[in-house]
């Protein structure tokens, strides 16, 4: 039986993976992957609620915007990662301590 909770459960697992990636991995690009996971989990929720709760398709539009924002974020984040690598010769997150004070 496919109902709302199966989708929500899937998105939770995805979200959890994203959080774990964000918290545990030390590579900046890997952390960006985690962010993508988190965003997609949110997107699944939007679509699922549209399907099961109300059908006015605003959730779809939100998901589209999420994709847009994710694309922008990925572009800028990766640019920063590459730049950081050019300067520091590494993309280890613990090396990004210049602003730590």
């Amino acid at each position, binding site marked *: 039986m496919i109902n709302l909770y199966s989708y929500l459960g899937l998105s939770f697992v995805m979200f959890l993976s994203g*959080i774990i990636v*964000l*918290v*545990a991995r*030390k590579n900046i690009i890997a952390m960006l992957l985690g962010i993508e996971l988190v965003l997609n989990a949110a997107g699944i929720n939007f679509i699922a609620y549209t399907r099961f709760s109300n059908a006015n398709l605003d959730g779809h539009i939100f998901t589209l915007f999420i994709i847009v924002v994710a694309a922008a974020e990925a572009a800028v984040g990766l640019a920063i990662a590459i730049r950081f690598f050019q300067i520091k010769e590494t993309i280890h*997150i*613990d090396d*990004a*301590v210049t*602003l*730590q*004070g």
Partner: protein
Amino acid sequence: MEYSICTIAPIVLLPFFAFVINAFIVKRFTNIAVAISCFSIFGSFLFAARIFNDFVFGVYSAGFHVHKVFTWFDISATGLPFKVDMGFYIDNMSATMLLMVTGVATLIHVFSTFYMHDDKRYGRFFVYLSLFTSAMLGLVLSDNLLSVFIFWELMGFCSYSLIGFYYEKEGAGDASIKAFMTTRVGDVFFLFGIVILWSVIGSVSFVEIYKAISAMKLQGLTVLGFPLATVAAASVFMGTVGKSAQVPLQVWLPDAMWGPTPCSALIHAATMVAAGVYLSLRMYPLMEAGHMMTVISYIGAITAFGAATIALIQTDIKAVLAFSTISQLGYMVMGIGVGAYNASFMHLITHAVFKACLFLAAGSVIHSLHDHHTHSHVQEMPRMGGLRKKLPFTFIAMMCCTLAIAGIPFFSGFVSKDRILGDALYMAMKHSSYIPVAVLGFGAALLTAFYMFRMMFLTFFGEPRDKELHDHCHHEHLSWNQNIPLLILTVFTLGGWYCGSIMGQPFGKIATERYEWFQTLIEKPDVAKFKDYYKDNLIGGKTRPSISTEKSVYDENGGLSEEQAHHVHHAHHLGAIFSVIIAFFGVFLAFLAYIRKAIDPGKIVNAFSGWSRALQNKYYFDHFYKKILIHKILLRLNNFLAWLDLGIYDRYVIDGTEKVNSYMFQFAKWFDNLWIDSILVDGTGASVRLFNVVLRTVQSGSIQFYFIVILAVLTGYIIAI
């Protein structure tokens, strides 16, 4: 005609804004800064010309003035009757003065673009020029002594920075400090005078002072046993003595030639020294009320004669001009003293024009004489000579000015100086106490003619004495910004501009209704007229004619009775004849000495070696100030104060309190150790350290730790709901 603030304020504000803007942009955009300076001063010249046109060419009568004020501060609520109004006061005299200052300053600005062009601080010079001019214009427009004093000090600062413009040279730095400190002596007296007047009258406005004088408010009051009016007048006059370089504070002006030549032109002609005489003219009723006239005339006469004698033996072309300035200023002050009010003012104007021209011409000469050995410009006259053919245009300009300053008829100097001398002669015929004044005045006229022509002959005539220098001197390449100012100033050294009688009928209205415009339009402030006086508010408000609206027709006798007038005319005719004879005699002597070589100046110098040494040392004024005043008195005072400080204050006051302190100290130590150190200080430290440990853990800078914290907070939040 209405005068709003918009037509008056730009005169002073334009150069001031130029100064403010240029102070910021001058390093990067030197040429733009120079252009801003020149155009702003020209703009204020246009505004001044408009006011001059209205005032002098016949819209108003002689007594008319515009007076616009706003209250600057008012502490009368405290029970003290002090209220200071700031404002503009324009009458015929200030209108003329404004035109002269802006006009001469414009021409000096233009000349400076030529003269200073290769200087490494080209732009900065214009910054100072703008501020200097705006300060002078502010002074001329001021309606009270306090704002006069403010602008007065501003000018003191500008002269300081301009005289020390070449601060790499040690002499320039010393000269600038000397100028600043010497004028400061006068300024202290001036401030003292302002305070006295303020405490008695409750206002420092010119008009209020005139009113108080006419109401005899100063009568009967004394300060330290002296009449108050005399003390006030003497103090204010000391300001003039300092600023206008009168005896005994004349020592700074000769050293002022350390500055660049255009700045000398500005200081000697339009701004600095003119301010002192202008102040005395404004305060003329006070000087009269204080019975200062005899003293003033003596100081002026001594200055005029003494400076002229020193100028006789100077070899530096600028030094001759500097001493001639002191001498001419002596004439002006003498003119105030003998009651020649408008002649004195006229001499101020004519002198400004021809002295500016002389300095600019001297600048041209110096600029063209470049010594290739020392890489400097030559100012020494013994190395010049025969420059007439090399610099024909400069020669003509300088010749006209020399004729003017020597008092040759048909030139401006004759018109004004002759009147001062005529009045001095009249006073001498009336009171025997004025005889020395007249004698010194005429003597100075003779010397003036002599040393000025000596300068001309040494510079432009004869054979070149330094052949190499002469050959190197490049021919005049008539650049416009060098020669147009000279040309204009030269034109205005002609006498006709200043007296309607010589040129015939120069300006329609002046010729028909007013015989000589200077004499009819510039009149002594008649204090009686100020009794029922009102002033306009600065913002808005219509300017009504304030005192007498009727046209003043030229009064042949100048308000004197028939018999007095006869004497005055007689004295004037006599004075004119004398001064012409004396001037020509002086020129003739110079001709004999330096062209014909019939008289050998060297022999005369040797014959009067004592005198000439005194002249070389400028009558030992500098020595006196340095050796006696500074070393003997001021340094001793200094040592005495140091002894007072170390021997008395340190020993008894400070050491005595030490005993008390030591007891206090014991208690304080105990208190400190227990309470402050161990509880407050260490306690604070410990608590800070505690927080530090916590906060350092939290503020790890690790973004992943932050994520964990965020998650924990979110979880807690969700549990809470």
